[in-house]
């Protein structure tokens, strides 16, 4: 798998790079951003995978979240893929902002015309790590995952479906219970079809209720003034209830005054990276 460097900028003593490659899972060219801390020049570093939300590309996080400084301090590589396959010319892929392009939902689609390309779940959990581990000074045993909104949903399901694969998981304003919210219902019915049992395979709340595996330590930040919270797209209470029942450790912080934007991510990204560093650098 050949990687082509698209850009490279020195940042916080390390390098913020963007690469492009041909993805075998997604059958198209995909870009991803990777931040290499100064420590990566001399030794292997743990990797934090960041999954962005609806309408984002690999650029939003690296330009708006301000994660490089703390990543540099803690010696962590941050990989931020795109949110869906691009340029596949699937009919309807650009019709809505919350389905299709920029809205991959980190699942493996089973329905036509999406099932060939829309395999973001496998891309994120298998292809991308393989790629990163063989091309960069990454410690293959030390991976963590995080994300925002749809990406938060992605981070949670990847961790819950792969017990022990990720050392830690965190999320910003995640879609916690997609089968119960408008976004999830629209996406899952489109990608996975009408059978709701297939949807449950990609629902964090449902997965939490049946989780068994090594102990997790989940950090979730949610802006109180987030319009999507009030419009019942995110449903964090359901996830909290499920985790309380199953004794999955979660610290959920409702942040007064914050909304759904990258300003919110910027404000708390340091706490999240430190949360991951605790486990990645242990």
């Amino acid at each position, binding site marked *: 798998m050949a990687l082509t460097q698209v850009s490279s900028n020195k940042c916080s003593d390390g390098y913020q790079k963007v690469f492009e490659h041909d993805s075998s899972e997604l059958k198209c060219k995909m870009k991803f951003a990777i931040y290499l801390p100064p420590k990566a020049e001399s030794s292997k570093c743990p990797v934090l995978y960041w999954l962005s939300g609806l309408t984002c590309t690999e650029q939003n996080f690296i330009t708006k979240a301000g994660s490089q400084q703390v990543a540099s301090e803690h010696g962590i590589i941050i990989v931020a893929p795109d949110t869906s396959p691009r340029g596949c010319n699937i009919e309807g892929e650009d019709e809505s902002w919350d389905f299709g392009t920029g809205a991959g939902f980190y699942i493996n689609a089973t329905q036509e015309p999406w099932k060939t390309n829309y395999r973001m779940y496998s891309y994120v959990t298998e292809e991308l790590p393989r790629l990163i581990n063989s091309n960069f000074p990454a410690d293959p045993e030390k991976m963590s995952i995080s994300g925002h909104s749809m990406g938060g949903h992605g981070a949670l399901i990847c961790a819950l479906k792969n017990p022990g694969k990720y050392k830690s998981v965190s999320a910003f304003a995640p879609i916690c219970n997609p089968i119960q919210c408008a976004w999830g219902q629209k996406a899952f019915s489109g990608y996975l079809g009408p059978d709701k049992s297939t949807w449950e395979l990609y629902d964090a709340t449902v997965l939490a209720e049946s989780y068994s595996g090594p102990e997790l*330590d989940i950090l979730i930040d949610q802006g109180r003034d987030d319009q999507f919270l009030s419009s019942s797209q995110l449903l964090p209470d359901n996830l909290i209830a499920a*985790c*309380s029942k199953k004794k999955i450790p*979660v*610290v*959920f912080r409702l942040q007064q005054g914050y909304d759904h934007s990258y300003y919110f991510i910027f404000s708390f990204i340091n706490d999240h990276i430190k949360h991951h560093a*605790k486990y990645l*650098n242990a």
Partner: protein
Amino acid sequence: MDVYEVRGRLDVIAEELTASEEEEEAVSVKQDSPDVSTAQQMKEQLSRSRSKLSQKIVEMENFASNLEEIFITVEENFGRQEQNLEQHYNEVLQTLSQRNEARAAVLDEQKNSKLERLYGQLLLCGRTLDAAKELIESAQELHRRPDKHAFLQAVTPVMKRVEQFSREEVDLKLGVSLDFDVPMMDLSQVRQMMDSINVLPAPSAPVMNPQIANSATDTSLHVCWSLFSDDTVEFYELYWRLISDDCTMETPQEVSQLKVKETHCTVSDLLPNAQYELWVTATNTTGISPASERAVYMTVPSPPVLKPRQCVSSLDSALIRWDSGNTNPVESYTLELHQTHADAGCSATECIVAIPSCECQLQLQPWKHYIIHIRAVNIGGPSDRSEPITVSTTGTFFHLLEDTAHPSLSLSADGLTMFYLDEDLPISHMTFSDNTFNRCVAVLGDLVPVRGHYYWEIDVDESAEFRVGVAYEDTQRNSYLGGNNTSWCMRHILTPSRHKYEFLHNGWTPDIRITVQPLRIGVFLDYSRGILSFYNAALRQHLYTFSCQFLHYVQPCFALDNPGALALRTGMTAPPYITQP
């Protein structure tokens, strides 16, 4: 050398001292001169000489004042001897002159009586003469009368009278002797007095020595005195009286005494930390000397009592507190520190002296064990060692402070667990003080006042509604922990449906949900980073961190909002997942 010369010497030394002080200051002013190290050396030298000189001055002053006392006493003694002798002789002279006068008076009397007698005789003679003359004249006159008839008539009685008169014996002897009867003088007393001048005088007053350092114990004093004359002494009598002891005294105390042959003595059965007035007399065959000046000696104090519950320690420091062990104040305290090694008992001992109050903060090596004793010191010397305590610099150690606890809280015997019992305590039991919490059922702990980092854990019951965190020492005792700006705490509230967690400061909390109830809470305090963090210690899960620059030292605080229990775990350092993320 007399006292004035000594004083003069002291003045010279004092002058030298000020001169050297000025020199030292001059040296320290030149801080930025290139030769800072030599200046430093000189400074050290100067300060060493200075301390030696100060020591010498103190010694000389003590010596000078003792000399003065001796000088005065010797003068007094000799003055007294002089006076004595003068008096003696005056008495003798007086007695002699008295005798003299008496004798003269007797002689005078004799003279007067003799003269009177003689005068009487003289008068008698004179009268006799006069009578005879008269007779002769009358006879002559008769003889000359021409009238023979009348002459015959008168001549017979006259002739009879003349015959009678001439027949009378004339006493021509002196009535008195011309010798004086000199009476015998009773000079035996005078002789006695003269003799006694040469006899041994009673001794002069001894001089009490000042108390020798470290010669006293808490119940005995070693007393010394000296005699500054050539008097013979058979024995001394030492008197002593308690003048102040460790409790307030109402009535003046009795005087005790002891007969001693030597010029020193150990007096026992005394009270600790007490002042005694002592004086001594010397006795010989002649009599008893006057009493010496009174000296005041002091027994050493009772040993202090360490308060382990109020001692706190961390990895590299400790704050030790104790009770004086004496009611009256002592001069200072000495702290003895032994480091113990696992294999070889005790090793190095360090001593910290002149501690003015009942607490001491120590700088220690991490990961070691120390044994600490305290002694109380007064002018009599140091007391025995107190019972020791052990300090281990292996983590943050402290106990719950009973005197800050709300009356409804009872603490366990080891001071690490608190119980809020579900029973109505009697009103009499609810004794509040300025230091106890009176609304929030809370208690404080304590930390070494050093701005380092500290870690402790709290074990709680599932149903315990608690508040744990830190607060300033003077946090309002009538308010709730976290409800003011002098306390920060994590709070657990149990509602019918769920567990609620708050992280309170100044009445405000962020909105945080926690899915797994923490039953062992780790609290981490870092003054330099200005953070107070809470963890689910069992899961090593971070719960929340306050960012605050603590303006003063803070103390751990604990409260129960409902009946329940809460146990403190101390003696730990912060686990690596906290300090090395």
